[in-house]
C-alpha cells in the first residue's frame, strides 16, 4: 500500500454569518494515498468545495473558519503552519483546478505568463530554464503546439483547452496533492471524457494524489479509486468505488446511485430522492439524512449514528448498518 499523502481528521469548517453559524463541514475524515484518486461526491452545498478550500486554507475571510480538526499533509498539520509557509505550500505542494475554465484564467495575461509565474515563484530555476518548464507543463496536459500557446491569451482558446491550461498551472510545480473541484462540469461530454483520461495519464506520470470533487457518479466510476459520499457537511459512507456501486451500504448512497440515469433501462421514470437537503443552520436531530430516508427508524431521529468500519477501506455512518 502506498504512502498516505493527505489525512483529514475530524475537520469542522463553519461560516459565521448574521443568521448564525453555518456548519459547512461538520466532522469530515478521509485520507488520500500517493497515486490514488479519492472522490468526494454529493449534492450542491453539501460542503465538498468548502472541504477543498479548507485544505488550501483559502476560505473567504473573515466569515469562514476551520473550527476543529487536523489536515495532515505528509506529516505536517497545515492548520498549524504560518501564513507564509502555507502560501509556499500552495501551488507547490497542493494545487487546485476550479470548475469554470472560462473564468478561472486571468484574461489580460498570456498563458505563458500565467504558468511561468508559478514556476518562478516555487522553483529556484535560472531564468533560461523557466520557458522549458512551462512547455513541459503544457505537454503534460497534452496541449498541442505548446510553444505557440504560451504566447496566446485565454480568450484565444476553447473551453476544453483552457481547462487543460488550468491543469498545466496546477501541475507546473509537480504538487503532491491535486484538488479537482468539478473540473469537468463545465465541459462538453466528449471533452469531458478526454479530460478525465488526462487525469489518469498525469497520475501515472507524476504519482500525484488527487481529490476529485463532483456531483456526478458517472465521473466517479470513471476515475476514482475510493469515494466518500458527503451529505450536509458530513461524509456518510467511504468505500472503494467498485464496492460502493456493487453494494452501497448507506441508504443515501443507494438512493444517489439509483438516481443516475442508465442507458439500458428504457421507459422508466428516473428515481429521485424526496425532499431537500437540510439547512446547515438548523440540522435535524439525530442522523442528518433521516428526514429524507425511506428506511429511517426511531433511533435515527434521536441519535447521530457512529461511524462503523466494515473493513479496512469501507466505513458507514448509519444505524441500519451493524
Amino acid at each position, binding site marked *: 500500500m502506498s504512502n498516505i499523502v493527505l489525512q483529514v481528521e475530524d475537520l469542522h469548517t463553519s461560516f459565521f454569518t448574521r443568521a448564525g453559524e453555518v456548519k459547512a463541514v461538520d466532522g469530515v475524515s478521509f485520507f488520500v494515498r500517493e497515486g490514488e484518486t479519492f472522490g468526494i461526491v454529493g449534492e450542491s452545498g453539501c460542503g465538498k468545495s468548502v472541504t477543498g478550500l479548507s485544505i488550501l486554507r483559502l476560505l473567504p475571510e473573515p466569515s469562514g473558519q476551520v473550527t476543529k480538526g487536523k489536515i495532515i499533509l505528509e506529516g505536517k498539520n497545515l492548520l498549524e503552519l504560518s501564513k507564509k509557509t502555507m502560501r509556499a505550500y*500552495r501551488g507547490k505542494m497542493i494545487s*487546485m483546478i*476550479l470548475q469554470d475554465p472560462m*473564468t*478561472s484564467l*486571468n*484574461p489580460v495575461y*498570456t498563458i505563458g505568463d500565467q504558468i511561468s509565474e508559478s514556476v518562478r515563484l516555487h522553483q529556484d530555476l535560472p531564468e533560461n530554464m523557466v520557458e522549458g518548464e512551462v512547455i513541459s507543463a503544457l505537454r503534460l496536459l497534452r496541449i498541442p503546439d505548446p510553444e505557440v500557446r504560451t504566447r496566446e491569451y485565454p480568450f*484565444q482558446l476553447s473551453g476544453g483547452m483552457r481547462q487543460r491550461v488550468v491543469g498545466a498551472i496546477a501541475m507546473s510545480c509537480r504538487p503532491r496533492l491535486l484538488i479537482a473541484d468539478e473540473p469537468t462540469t463545465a465541459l462538453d461530454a466528449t471533452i469531458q471524457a478526454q479530460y478525465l483520461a488526462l487525469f489518469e495519464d498525469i497520475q501515472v506520470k507524476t504519482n500525484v494524489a488527487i481529490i476529485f470533487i463532483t456531483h456526478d457518479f458517472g465521473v466517479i466510476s470513471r476515475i476514482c479509486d475510493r469515494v466518500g459520499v458527503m451529505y450536509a457537511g458530513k461524509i456518510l459512507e467511504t468505500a472503494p468505488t467498485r464496492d460502493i456501486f456493487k453494494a452501497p451500504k448507506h441508504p443515501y448512497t443507494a438512493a444517489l446511485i439509483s438516481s443516475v440515469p442508465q442507458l439500458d433501462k428504457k421507459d422508466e421514470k428516473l428515481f429521485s430522492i424526496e425532499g431537500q437537503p437540510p439547512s446547515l443552520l438548523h440540522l435535524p436531530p439525530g442522523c442528518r439524512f433521516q428526514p429524507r430516508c425511506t428506511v429511517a427508524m426511531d433511533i435515527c431521529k434521536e441519535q447521530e449514528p457512529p461511524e462503523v468500519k466494515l473493513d479496512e477501506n469501507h466505513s458507514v455512518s448509519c444505524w441500519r448498518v451493524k
Partner: protein
Amino acid sequence: MTRFIIVRILQAIVALIGITILVFFLVRVSGDPMALIASPNLSEEQYQKIKESLGLDKSWGEQFWIYIKEMTRGNLGESLIREKPVTTMIGESLPNTLKMTVPSFVLSMLLAFFLGIMAATYRDSFWDNGVKFLAVLGQALPGFWVAIMAVLIFSVYLEWLPVAGMSTPAHYVLPVLTMVFFMLPGMMRLVRSSMLDVLDSEYIKLARIKGLPERVVIWKHALRNALITPLTIIGMLLPTLVVGAVISEQIFNWPGMGSMILRATFERDFPVVQAITVLVAIMVLGVNLLVDILYAYIDPQIRYQRS
C-alpha cells in the same frame, strides 16, 4: 491597431469641423454683442463705425469664412471687448488653470486608487467604512458649498489661509482641496466597486491557489482588470483640467480659463467663446482617442478585435 487609430483621428476631425460650425452660429443666435458694447448715447454713425471695426457688419456667412481662413493661419481672432488676441488671453489664463487643476487631479487620482483599492481589499473593515462614508459625503455635498464653508472656516474664522488669489503657495491649498473633494469621492467609489467585482472572480481565486503573495494578487492580477471603468471616467475628467473648475475659480477669484469663459459668455465675446469651446472639443476628442488606445494596451482582447 494603426488602422484603427487613423480611422479614429479622421472621425475626430469630422467631429471637430461639425463642432466649429455649430459653435460659431450658436453663439450668434445668443444675441448681439453690440447691445452690450455700444452705449445708447452713440450716434448712428459712431455705432456703425464700431460695428464695422469689429467685423460684425458683415453677413454670418462672410464672418464664418474669415473665421475659418484666419484659424488655418493660427489666428483665433481678437476679443471684442478687450482688444487682445484670443491666443494671448488663453496664454495668460491656461497656465493659471493648470496650476490649480493638475495638482488637484494628480492628488485625487493617487488617493482614489490607493483608498479605493484598500477599501476593496479590506472589505467591510473600519477602513472600508471610512471610505464609503467619505464617498457618500463627497457626492452629497455640492462643491461650491464646501468651498465657501472651507473659506469661512479656514480663512475667515481661523485665519490660517488666504481667502482668494494665487500669489503664494498657501493660496493653492483651499482651491486644490476643494477640487480634490469634488473629483475624489466618485472616482474612489468607482475604483472600489470595480476592484470588488474583480476580486470576486475565479482567476483571483486561482492566483491565490498558485500561492502568490497578496501584493501580487492585488496589484498585478486584480488591478489591471479593474482599470477599464475608472479609465473611462478619467477620460471624461481630463478636459475639465483645461476649462478649469468654473465654480472654484469664481469662488477663489482665480484668473483662469473658467473665469474667462464665464465672463466671455456673459459679454457675448464671440471669438473667446468659440476658441475655448473648440479647444475643449479638441481635448475631449484627443483624450477619448488616448483612452481607446489605453484600453487596447490593458485588455488584449480589445487589441485583437481591432487588428
